[in-house]
């Protein structure tokens, strides 16, 4: 892993169009600003892991049981009745 020392307001540049700026340095945390193109998604690491792992879990699906589908169909029916 590349390790770089930076002070407040200094930045690092990744590729041509991603910038990470150190905004604030505290006792047990730093605040970073990230500037990236709109097609680059930026997440806190733990959030990325949580969503990626949920997505992975959803690929190993079995066909839904009729109990689940029936309950959802009832709900849809109720919603359209309410309209």
């Amino acid at each position, binding site marked *: 892993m590349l390790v770089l020392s930076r002070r407040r307001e200094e930045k690092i540049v990744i590729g041509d169009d991603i910038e990470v700026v150190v905004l604030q340095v505290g006792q047990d945390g730093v605040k970073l600003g990230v500037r990236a193109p*709109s*097609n*680059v*998604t930026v*997440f806190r690491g733990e*959030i*990325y892991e*949580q*969503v*990626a*792992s*949920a*997505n*992975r*879990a*959803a*690929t190993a*699906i*079995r*066909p*839904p*049981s009729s*109990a*689940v*589908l029936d*309950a*959802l*169909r009832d*709900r*849809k029916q109720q*919603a359209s009745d309410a309209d």
Partner: protein
Amino acid sequence: MAIAETPHGPIEYQSSQVFCMDGGLVGFCDATRFVLIENSEVEPLRWLVSVDRPELAFLVVDPRLLIPDFRVHLRDEERMRLELTDDDDVLLLAITVVGETSEEATANLKAPIVVNPRKMTAAQVVLIDSEYSVHQPLLAASAG
């Protein structure tokens, strides 16, 4: 007409049905083109199939079926990515994990997929401050 061989059987689709998720689904950056398939066997769920990687086939649900007032606040970058204008109506999809029993079934309401049907663009949006989880119980969702 093209065919994607999913683990649940082949599905046919038109190229005009393909929408583009720039950057891919979270954790699957090489899966950027998807189709949404209606199927009476799983209705009101729908299949979301990656045409780049047809082994990735998800069952998705409209989150508003679970939470009638479910809302997504998009950040400017996300609106730009989706090429959304104020007049566009978006389509919301939550990825589900449905098992044998109703109790086990969950939907990811923390990171729904937002589709702009006008531009055929989509993004999986992470709602950082959401009260909902990535494994929100599917059928208890609106009870609380």
